[in-house]
């Protein structure tokens, strides 16, 4: 069908403008990380790598990076291990009361992260007083809070993928001599590799960038990198944060762009849409 050329051009120009809008704050951060002016003067006063030196020498950022990596890796591993069987059950076993179960499971997607953070903080403190269990301001506490945020996301993606694996291949594997666990490992798991990878990467990035919940449950010793950045930015606005951001952007883009090599683009898109319901 033929559309008017004007309409087509108008849409293309609109798209180009949107894309510029989307990239602008990211590009300016990258450019500004080399800005010699400590006051973000624009246009830049000259080229410098000083801000990168400052970032790399900053002990708070160093500690934050290590903490964030530890927390990100561990919580991603935990949600994958806990989320996979839940998704499998949701996709395969017909349940009464499944609506209620799902409502609770997916609630963290809707409850404001600030509220989750505060609620977890309250819980940690209460548990600490009642049982001596140390969660507030510990790795365990932050990891638990991140798992709460990431689990529904991982389960949503994996449930869709399990739903697409024909249950009959499991029966076939069993018939050929596989134990129930072997059937799952050999016949089902390989078919959801892509979804596991995608949900793992998104879970990791979520954890690695998370501020709003984390702010409530950390203490300085376990501050994650974004929390350190938040506090830094509340006080200073020199390009140190630009340099750090540039490094992080490079890092997350590197991880995320590795995904399309593992999964097809449209499949990725479908998974992302399904995860947002």
């Amino acid at each position, binding site marked *: 069908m033929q559309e008017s050329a004007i309409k087509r051009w108008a849409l293309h120009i609109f798209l180009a403008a949107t894309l510029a809008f989307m990239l602008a704050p990211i590009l300016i951060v990258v450019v500004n990380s080399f800005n010699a002016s400590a006051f973000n003067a624009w246009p830049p006063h000259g080229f410098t790598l000083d801000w990168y030196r400052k970032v790399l020498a900053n002990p708070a950022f160093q500690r934050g990076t290590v903490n964030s990596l530890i927390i990100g890796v561990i919580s991603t591993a935990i949600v994958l291990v806990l989320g996979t069987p839940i998704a499998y059950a949701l996709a395969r076993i017909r349940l009464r009361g499944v609506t209620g179960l799902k409502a609770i499971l997916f609630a963290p997607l809707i409850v404001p992260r600030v509220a989750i953070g505060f609620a977890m903080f309250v819980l940690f403190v209460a548990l600490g007083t009642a049982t001596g269990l140390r969660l507030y301001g510990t790795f365990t506490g932050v990891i638990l809070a991140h798992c709460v945020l990431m689990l529904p996301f991982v389960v949503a993606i994996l449930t869709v993928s399990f739903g697409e694996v024909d249950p009959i291949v499991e029966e076939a594997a069993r018939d050929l001599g596989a134990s129930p666990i072997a059937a799952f490992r050999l016949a089902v798991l390989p078919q959801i590799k892509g979804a596991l990878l995608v949900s793992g990467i998104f879970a990791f990035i979520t954890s690695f960038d998370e501020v709003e919940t984390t702010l409530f449950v950390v203490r300085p010793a376990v501050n994650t990198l*974004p929390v350190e950045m938040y506090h830094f930015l509340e006080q200073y606005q020199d390009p140190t944060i630009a340099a750090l951001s540039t490094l992080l952007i490079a890092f997350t883009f590197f991880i995320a762009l590795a995904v399309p090599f593992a999964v097809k683009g449209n499949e990725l898109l479908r998974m992302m849409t399904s995860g947002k319901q």
Partner: protein
Amino acid sequence: MSAVAAAPASGRRLSRGARLGLLLGPGFICVVLPFVAAMALLGAYSLNLRDTTGAGLGLSVWSQFLGDPFNWRVIWSSVQLAALSTVITILIAYPTAAALLRVRNRFYLVVAYVALFSPLLVSVISRSYGWLLLLSDTGFVNQTFGLFGLGPYRMVFNETGVIIALVHVLLPYAVLPILNIMTQVPPVYREAALDLGASGWTVFRQVTLPLTLPGVIVAAEIIFALSISAFVTPSLLGGGRVLTLSRMLYDNIGLIEWGMAAVQAIVLLTTALAVLFVLERVNRATHAARQD
């Protein structure tokens, strides 16, 4: 249906309940239960469970919160801010999705997707910082305006900056569902309407828009929920001058007003749910209308 969680040693199948327990149990006990407990505790605290004033269990914090007109203003301005961000986001997302569907060049398409979804890959801190750089009085935007003898306009530490930064991060969440539904609307409908002599605008208003409306509503639900609960963006770009529910909650914890913070957290959640509920009703109604 075979069971993952059957006991291989005895060769006997586990009962359905045992299988479910093994599959759901660990995740629910380790992660979901703490979350539920935390939310329950939040409710309890809002009812004065952690009594510091000697008032005992009751609705005293609630009445204190609801009786203060200042709080109502904050709720109202939070809702306004979120609603405005939602509307602007949708207005940008809709034509963006339509344009994306018409891109034929593979490379451009990949670039477009990466650009559109880049906010999801960049820390909220970095994004907010980027907007501070762009929008500050001497930043890129105002400098550019200056070349034309315009401005400077004040765009940071007020609602303008907050909304711009929110729209930026919300756009991908809005584009996805709209794109999704647009690809599901068969072009034959539009073609048929055009064939019947309808003008392009009429086709849009009477065919395309109604058919894609459910996607728009889903998008609105998602981004309203996200924007009303946003915390970092309003904090950094508002510079403390844009007061939202989430910001107030954070401040109250600093002040150890936990009961009040709990009330605010619940109000925040309720507001988000209320709007979701309304939008879901609208969604049902349009679905029903289309069935007729």
